[in-house]
């Protein structure tokens, strides 16, 4: 999602010069390494059903890995394996997938009914025992269990061919999302795998709409699985994944129309992509969880809620988004909810809290004893000028720009903000151990606001200064907050859930434990020349983040343009 940040600082000249400087450049079909020659041979006379996807980055070439649990898997894997439910990360809509329904018995037992008539792409029948096997595989190999479902599960069993029963040690309703995002693998193959953690699964057998037909280190091809249980809804017959070796060349290929669908960061996208073919070239950067400004709450002046409120008023998020983030990542709501998808969770009385207002910020600071001295510096009660440091990774060029905007905003109040740009590891280490004043972080967001609040506000995810915190880096520790988060975890009632999220939003607004700045964008460009029905802002039926579920949702929604 953020891979372009690194590449940007690597070849600033390349993108700028090549894309901006040469409007009429064109690539011939046989000319680029990234463009397959198979495209034309496979097309039918009437309509092109072959897609070329600019989504898989090599470094610089691919390594062969179709293990759906591996952190370094090939993106094509997401088109091969499926999950129990498809959950739309934008608004939480649940679509039954390998399971046709689910039911909670109390809060500690979850039962899925598994669909009949689904086959693995090697012809064997898929059943509930594959689901139970998959989850027990995660139990046996904790390295595969990236969502730690076994921290709350006690057993997973398949009493009959269409039923899977999950039993819980502790009530943890939101874990449903993690269970639903777990790719299901075939028992008849994986039971013979000696080490599933290092297994590269070069001959992947899944239930998905596509199967692997050829692989090289520079390009692989998936073809439609004709036995797919929703085969009639899938119009694409072939997916080609050329290797992306760098943003500059990939951007050139995108500009010349080589990709049907891509997830590239492109500077000035209207000019470099959309204007080339206004009828067919489109983009929708679906919002993700917010990037946050975190303040070290164990230090003065950040331990004062009024000071934090003043910060919330002082920062011009619109300007940060426009100048720091190319206008691609819209300003975030102060509650941290991912809008517009999570509109239904929004506390109506808080929706407009904290519009940019430097005067109000100055008043708040004055109310807790801060004054300006003769040099225009803001000084605290003991007369010391207020100055602190913001720490962001040196290769995240957009974050650095955003920090400069924030520094200008704070300078208006007389606060000096110094910028520190260590390496990625250095920055992350400082966040973990609490060795910083201010910093920027990514926000987690899945299908409901609990995931965000739990990761940034739960005391279980923090640690004392000097010890590694996992995601609550600002070190918010509050019994009432913890109680609310637990309450949400233990209820299936939407009324109670909404009540809890309402109260957590109030905490965000009144206490300002952290400041949501802007929503991370999911880079997503697509052409409607051959395929129509892509998710967009008016019909966000899936998040184009190229992960499990979303791909299958999109592939079963697309129609041929002609």
């Amino acid at each position, binding site marked *: *999602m953020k891979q372009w940040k690194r590449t940007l600082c690597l070849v600033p000249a390349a993108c700028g010069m090549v894309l901006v400087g040469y409007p009429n450049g064109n*690539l011939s079909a046989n000319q680029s390494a*990234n463009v397959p020659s198979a495209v034309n041979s496979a097309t039918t006379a009437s309509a092109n059903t072959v897609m070329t996807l600019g989504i898989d980055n090599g470094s610089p070439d691919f*390594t062969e890995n179709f293990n759906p649990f591996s952190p370094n898997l090939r993106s094509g894997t997401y088109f091969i394996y499926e999950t129990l439910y498809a959950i739309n990360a934008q608004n939480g809509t649940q679509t039954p997938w390998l399971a046709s329904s689910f039911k909670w018995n109390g809060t500690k037992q979850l039962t899925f009914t598994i669909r009949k008539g689904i086959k693995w792409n090697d012809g064997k029948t898929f059943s509930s025992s594959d689901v139970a096997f998959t989850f027990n595989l995660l139990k046996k190999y904790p390295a595969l*269990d990236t969502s730690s479902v076994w921290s709350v599960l006690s057993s997973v069993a398949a009493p009959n061919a269409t039923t899977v029963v999950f039993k819980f040690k502790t009530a943890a309703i939101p874990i449903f999302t993690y269970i639903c995002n777990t790719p299901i693998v075939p028992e008849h193959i994986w039971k013979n795998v000696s080490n599933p953690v290092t297994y590269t699964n070069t001959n992947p057998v899944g239930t998905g709409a596509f199967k692997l037909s050829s692989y090289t280190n520079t390009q692989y091809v998936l073809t439609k699985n004709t036995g797919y249980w929703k085969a009639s809804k899938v119009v694409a017959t072939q997916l080609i994944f050329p290797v992306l070796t760098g943003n500059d060349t990939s951007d*050139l290929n995108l500009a010349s129309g080589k990709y049907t669908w891509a997830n590239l960061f492109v500077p000035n996208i209207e000019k470099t992509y959309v204007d080339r073919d206004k009828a067919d070239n489109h983009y929708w950067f679906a919002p993700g969880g917010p990037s946050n400004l975190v303040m070290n709450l164990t230090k003065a002046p950040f331990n004062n809620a009024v000071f934090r409120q003043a910060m919330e008023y002082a920062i011009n998020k619109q300007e940060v988004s426009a100048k720091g983030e190319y206008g691609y990542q819209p300003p975030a709501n102060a509650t941290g909810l991912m809008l517009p998808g999570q509109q239904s969770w929004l506390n109506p009385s808080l929706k407009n809290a904290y519009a940019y207002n430097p005067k109000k910020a100055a008043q708040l600071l004055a109310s807790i004893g801060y004054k300006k001295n003769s040099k225009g510096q803001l000084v605290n009660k003991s007369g010391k000028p207020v100055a602190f440091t913001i720490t962001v*990774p040196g290769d995240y060029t957009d974050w650095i720009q955003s920090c400069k905007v924030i520094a200008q905003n704070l300078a208006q109040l007389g606060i000096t903000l110094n910028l520190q740009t260590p390496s990625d590891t250095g920055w992350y*280490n400082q966040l973990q151990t609490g060795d910083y004043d201010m910093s920027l972080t990514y926000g987690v967001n899945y299908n409901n606001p609990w995931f965000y609040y739990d*990761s940034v506000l739960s005391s279980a995810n923090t640690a004392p200064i000097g010890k590694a915190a996992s995601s609550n880096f600002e070190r918010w520790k509050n019994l009432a907050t913890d109680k609310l988060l637990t309450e949400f975890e233990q209820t299936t009632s939407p009324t109670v859930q909404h009540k809890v999220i309402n109260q957590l939003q109030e905490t965000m607004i009144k206490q300002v434990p952290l400041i949501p700045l802007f929503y991370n964008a999911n880079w997503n460009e697509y052409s409607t020349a051959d395929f129509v029905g892509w998710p967009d802002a008016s019909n966000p039926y899936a998040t184009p983040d190229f992960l499990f579920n979303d791909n299958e949702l999109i592939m079963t929604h697309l129609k041929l343009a002609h």
Partner: protein
Amino acid sequence: MRHFLRRLIILLLTLWTTVTINFLIPRLMPGNPAEAMLAKFHGKGPMSPQALHSIEVMLGISSEGLLKQYSQYWVNVFHFNFGVSYTYFPYSVRHMIAQTLPWTLVLVGVTTVISFVVGTLLGILSAWRQGKIFSDMAITSLFTFTSSFPYFWFALLCAFFLSYVLNWFPLSGGNAGNMTPSLNFNFLASAAYHSILPALTILVSSIGGWQLGMRNNMLTALSEDYVTLAKARGLSEMRIALTYAARNAILPNMTGFAMSLGFIVGGSVLTELVFGYPGMGNLLYVAVQNEDFPLMQGIFLIIVICVVVANLAADIVNVFIDPRVRRAGE
């Protein structure tokens, strides 16, 4: 003989030092490799706090004593086993190096040899015909120019005009998309076609160094008394130029050449980045960028071994072409 023995001992000492430093540096760095990997995954986007634990389990970081790790490290070095690359998990460092080394050896190796041979010959020519319009003035000015402009800029210009605008060469990659590396004609032709532009840019930017160096050395040699004597004896021009002047003048260039042979395995980082070439330079860049210590250690060790061995080879060659070195050792 004593000369070689002394050289060999120095070589072994160098190797021991570098392997030890190679072992120590990542372990003296603040933080551990797992943290580097966590930062890398964090940087890719939101991830659940729980996922961090599974990565730690996956990597299996050693918590044994330093001394035990050190002895184990030596065993691994002899087996060329540097463990699993963090970036390319689950592939091993050995696998990644085996996959990328041939690309670099061919591209950088061939261009280094061509560049040295052509540059040195042109240097001899320019010095012998000092002051002539074409064979000295034009060549020397051109090479002063080509060796002084920034490589990165030149490579980008080439990629932009020759690949993007004129479509003469591929923009990036080592071979066309749908091919597996093998020794068949189609693949080799595709690989050769993809290597022309990177090779061209390396040649243009490196040839000047050899030419200028050789020309200067040669000019010094030409003013020596033995050249005057050879001329007085009426020896042929060619013989004076090559066996008298050039043989003496080439010694510093020879050492430089041996050094650059050693550095071939390190690849050419800038070239490989600009052209997305799947070689060692790119691998090294990826390793450094991701703080992939096992991969870095593997690459550095190979570079060190090759440079040290190349130095030894240069010493041996010097002994053969320069009797003075031989005698100094005795």
